């Protein structure tokens, strides 16, 4: 017969052994059932004809264009870069291939790795999307602004320094015998410039900005948002056009905080005084 102390020790040893056995069993079971590395891999079995609808995000598109630009500039692929530059950009600045290469050399961005600092994207007309990429040379302070104009996925041209496009499509609109003819439109990512001509079709003279009460031009979008020109040759002074006379002007409007280029569709010329008539009119021209 074992004494009490020995019995107590045996019970403790038994209990400890039981606990140890349970722990070992649990560990063994976990080890057995733990999924192997192959099973927990995300890689799916390849099946011909089976594809998933990928999630489209703007970031994916921007990343794609950034990578394409990175490769072109890193590899100094001047032919491919030049081929991508929009014809209207070359035409507007009267650049040839050598000029584009010199521009990029001046910016010290060729053969260098580029980092995407920031981007903006917006629709400028119809199906044309614009992606404005600000890229910086790695470990340097040099930056380059590339504007990508995309008409369909992966179908695009590029321009530099915030230039979007340039057109000589003429918009003509007539109000109260005054004809407005926009003969040039230059769009940047932060502004829009109109070169236009005003023709006086009235049988007497007309005063634009009669009374010279500030700048007479206002650009309005479809939501009623108004823009005053940041620069214009149609000055704050009164301008008189005799009957049949026409004069050309330029006006630049800042668009940066809205990017809704499409919606700006009305140009207002304030305080137009027709000779022989009382009071002055504000003329609203549709420009899109």
């Amino acid at each position, binding site marked *: 017969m074992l004494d009490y102390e020995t019995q107590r020790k045996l019970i403790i040893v038994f209990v400890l052994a039981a606990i140890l056995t349970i722990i070992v069993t649990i560990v063994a079971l976990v080890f057995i059932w733990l999924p192997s590395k192959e099973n927990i891999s995300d890689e799916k079995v*390849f099946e011909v*004809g089976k594809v998933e*609808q990928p999630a489209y995000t703007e970031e994916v598109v921007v990343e794609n264009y950034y990578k394409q630009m990175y490769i072109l500039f890193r590899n100094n692929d001047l032919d491919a870069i030049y081929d991508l530059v929009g014809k209207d950009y070359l035409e507007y600045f009267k650049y040839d291939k050598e000029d584009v290469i010199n521009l990029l050399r001046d910016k010290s961005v060729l053969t260098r790795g580029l980092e995407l600092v920031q981007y903006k994207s917006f629709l400028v007309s119809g199906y044309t999307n614009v992606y404005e990429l600000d890229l910086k040379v790695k470990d340097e302070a040099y930056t380059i602004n590339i504007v990508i104009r995309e008409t369909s*996925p*992966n179908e695009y041209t590029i321009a530099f320094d915030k230039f979007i496009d340039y057109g000589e499509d003429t918009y003509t609109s007539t109000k109260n015998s005054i004809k407005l003819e926009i003969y040039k439109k230059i769009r940047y990512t932060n502004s829009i410039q109109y070169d236009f001509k005003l023709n006086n079709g009235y049988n007497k003279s007309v005063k634009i900005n009669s009374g010279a009460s500030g700048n007479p031009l206002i650009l309005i979008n479809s939501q009623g948002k108004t823009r005053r020109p940041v620069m214009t040759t149609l000055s704050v002074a009164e301008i008189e056009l005799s009957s049949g006379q026409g004069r050309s002007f330029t006006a630049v409007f800042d668009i940066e905080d809205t990017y809704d280029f499409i919606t700006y569709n009305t140009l207002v010329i304030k305080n137009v005084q027709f000779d022989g008539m009382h009071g002055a009119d504000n003329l609203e021209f549709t420009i899109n």
Partner: protein
Amino acid sequence: MLDKIKTILTIALIVIVIFAIGYSIIKLIISAFETPELITMDTLSKYTKETNVITSYSTYFYYENCMKNLVEACQKELYKELYNIYIDDYKNEITNDEIVNKLKAIREMLIPKDIDDDIKYNLKKLYYAGTNYLAEIEINNYTIYLVFAETNSKEIDYNFALVK
């Protein structure tokens, strides 16, 4: 008088119904004998118009995935599986042996043996082509055109055919 009107209406109704049924049957018979127009290199310009270009990114990305899947299948030389997803209408024109050879030719075109590890391909443009899609693909300086079609099969997401 009322009876006359009723008779005229009844006859008119019967004539309309007979005409509608007859028209539908004739249409059905004609469509059964009609062969669908297949896209060939000769008729390509009919489909590659700017107005047919797909501007939707989700569609573009989807068929880009189809293209990747196809390239991978070619890399793995899965001809039998590629045959299964070849568009039936385009199969009708050729024998099975020719199809295998054609698929091998596609494979050769997609992945020339000497540049197996450096294949560069790009879904350049995607067009609407009736109920199908036409893909212009650049592969290692080649341009090929593939027709992609949706399927009703649960096991297969797309069919394809090479435009020749």
